[in-house]
């Protein structure tokens, strides 16, 4: 049985349809890369998966049950920015979820308990290569380090699903490379399902087990807001490191957003 099933999902803001008729079945431990033109509703889709927002129609189920109406610890998230707490040091950011879970009133550990939590977190910090800055505040970290911290923090509650919204969008290619290795090994280790929005088709292809392309199937030039985007293209990826040639052209097009509003992308094979 699939872990997540999305049925006939739609989102409208007034007359403005963002998503419509989105259907999707995702098995456990899949890594779904989501691509699509800017403004087509990828972040909106993630917000629905997070329950940060409610759909206008349709439903999302996890393990057969409708998802909770508000964000829960079963679904973790890393945004492009603002994903770590600036007032907490690196190690404090990582032990925060443990404190929240174990101490309902204070939300805080003291003394020996705190030391133990820090020891537990040390391993994870090691994994994401932040041991040397464990007591630094986020303002002193580079963008890549902040994202690694955000990922480590998001993994502490052991979410079934991890949602990444352009997590590496602001990083340079070299840093991205390291981040890719880290996220892949964590994904294998933690056995979770990942949804990652990216503007880099190659990145999506390299990391994902499955590629989801969001686009509008119908297009009315008189009323561009009338129709929403849906999943137009759902490609399983067998661990190839190279982009198939037919996708190269598409990668170009995606990188050249947002001029393309002239209609649905030509469906790929």
């Amino acid at each position: 049985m699939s872990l997540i099933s999305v049925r006939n999902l739609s989102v409208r803001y007034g007359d403005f349809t963002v998503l419509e008729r989105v259907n999707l079945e995702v098995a456990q431990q899949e890594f779904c890369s989501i691509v699509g033109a800017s403004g087509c509703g990828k972040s909106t889709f993630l917000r629905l998966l997070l329950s940060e927002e409610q759909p206008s129609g349709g439903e999302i189920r996890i393990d057969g049950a409708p998802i909770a109406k508000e964000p829960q610890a079963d679904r973790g998230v890393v945004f492009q920015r603002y994903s770590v707490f600036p007032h907490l040091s690196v190690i404090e950011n990582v032990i925060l979820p443990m404190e929240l879970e174990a101490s309902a009133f204070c939300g805080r550990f003291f003394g020996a308990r705190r030391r133990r939590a820090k020891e537990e977190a040390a391993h994870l910090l090691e994994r994401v290569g932040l041991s040397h800055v464990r007591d630094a505040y986020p303002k002193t970290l580079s963008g890549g380090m902040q994202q690694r911290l955000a990922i480590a923090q998001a993994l502490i509650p052991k979410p079934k699903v991890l949602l990444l919204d352009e997590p590496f969008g602001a990083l340079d290619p070299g840093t991205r490379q390291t981040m890719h290795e880290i996220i892949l090994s964590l994904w294998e280790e933690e056995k979770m399902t990942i949804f990652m929005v990216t503007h880099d088709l190659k990145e999506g292809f390299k990391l994902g087990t499955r590629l989801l392309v969001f686009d509008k199937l119908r297009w009315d030039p008189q009323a561009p807001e009338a129709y929403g985007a849906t999943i137009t293209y759902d490609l399983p990826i067998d661990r190839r490191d190279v982009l198939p040639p037919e996708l190269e052209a598409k990668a170009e097009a995606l990188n050249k957003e947002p001029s393309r509003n002239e209609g649905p992308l030509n469906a790929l094979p």
Partner: protein
Amino acid sequence: MGRLINRRPGRAGQVLLGALPFILLAAAYLMASDARLAVNPNDKLLPSVQSFVDAINRLAFQPDPRKGTYILWDDTLASLLRLGIGLSVATGFGLVAGVAIGLLPLARSAFAPVVAVLSMVPPLAILPILFIVFGLGEVAKVMLIVIGVTPFMVRDLSMSVATLPREQLVKAQTLGASTWQIVTRVVLPQTLPRLVSALRLSLGPAWLFLISSEAIAATEGLGYRIFLVRRYLAMDVILPYVAWITLLAFMIDWALRHLSDRAFDWQPGERGL
């Protein structure tokens, strides 16, 4: 280095430039005072340095012949107490209401409009009401400060809470935080720096309200003394009192700024303001 915008003072130059206006002000006063006293030795408007020293000595270091206490210190204590209580109450209330309004949509719908309206009421206009309701004692004076400062605090803090990135609140929820935990672990710690700066900005209005109410009904206090001796044109008392009030306000502000810089070292950006 040609352009003026590129010319910066060195370290010594900075101190010198900073001191210059003070020196000029003092010199201007001394010259004007000398000139007036030369014409009329009993002139009260611009007293000489010697009369300041005498007045300060009399008020600060000699016990008052009637009460046996030191007037300046009594006044200072009374005023600081009122100021401290008033500002503490306003800050506490401002923090609670500000966080509630900034974070909870229900509280925002219920209270944001009433706060917006109440903050437009000129506090001094309701001072008579306060005296009628609370009598001429301490409560009315403290209440004036509370009423004058709280609406600003509430609005400033609720705005600062509302500008916390939405991502942080969502992230906290995905880490399992309850509303209470979000308040105590995410929102409050990040609001405290803003609380201190709101407090600093409130100091000026708070002194204004304090001195106004002391001028009208009090038996001691810095504002009371100034308005009392005004009848005798006692500039030799008024000016040192004004200088003392200024110094107190400056020191409180300085202490708060340093507290903020030290306690909230996680903060990125602006310092030394």
